[in-house]
């Protein structure tokens, strides 16, 4: 059972990664990242459940992951707003000023 949960987490993580890498729009990238963090939550919960249910560490990781997801979403929108307001663009490709 643990392997199945972990496989699920891996699948979610990979799809999220595919999304983040292939999408141009910042929002879609954020959605990809959301999926990756969801994979992490699943893995954490499964590991907590199958390996160390006595301690609460697993849960703390899940809480952390959730907070991370929330922070990521908030900052994502803030950055998109700021970039949109100053550049009137919403795709990651256009904002490539930090080029080497």
């Amino acid at each position, binding site marked *: 059972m643990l392997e199945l949960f972990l496989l*699920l987490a891996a699948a979610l993580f990979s799809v999220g990664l595919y999304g983040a890498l292939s999408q141009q729009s910042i929002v879609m990238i954020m*959605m990809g990242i959301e999926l990756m963090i969801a994979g992490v939550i699943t893995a954490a919960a499964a590991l907590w459940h199958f390996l160390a249910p006595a301690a609460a560490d697993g849960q703390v990781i899940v809480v952390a992951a959730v907070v991370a997801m929330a922070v990521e979403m908030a900052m994502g929108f803030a950055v998109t707003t700021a970039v949109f*307001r100053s550049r009137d663009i919403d795709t990651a490709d256009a904002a490539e000023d930090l080029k080497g």
Partner: protein
Amino acid sequence: MTAALFAVLAVLAVTGAVLVFRCASMARATFALLASLVCVGGEVILLGLPYLGVVTVLMMVMEMVVMAVFMVAYMMNPAGLMPMSMVHNRRGALTISGVVFAGLAAGVLLAPWPGRVGTAPQDTTFQAGAALMGDQMLTMVTLGFALLATMVGATVLAVGRGRYDRFGDDLSRPRPDDPAGGGVGR
């Protein structure tokens, strides 16, 4: 029964995830994402963490609603329903994520997972709460500060005209250059 439930939720989650990037419009993508994350919440509840599962689901619903408002505000096309696919480097991304998935799967299948140590307490939420308020207090404090910092940061970034626009980058301008007069102290 839990295995069947798990299987259903798992499949739903993955298809939701795939759909997010397959649909042409943003709205559909958002809702696909919402579906996927709700399944994840369900999985967590299934694993015996009802509180965390519910928290995940609630947070995801709020996010998706905000994203919907967000898309209406910014997206050029009305209500984001127009077909739009801005994608680049699809093959590269596919290969990388495929490789990552294969790696992770190999890791999961080959790793000699140890047995369970100890049993889950009756009330896992109490366990989590005691932990957060007990020996994990530092994590709780850090997460707290992180959330506070995000709130402040996001607001400053997102706000249209901040102090810096009005009083110059190093706040050195004597009089703020507001387009319209009036306001505090004028």
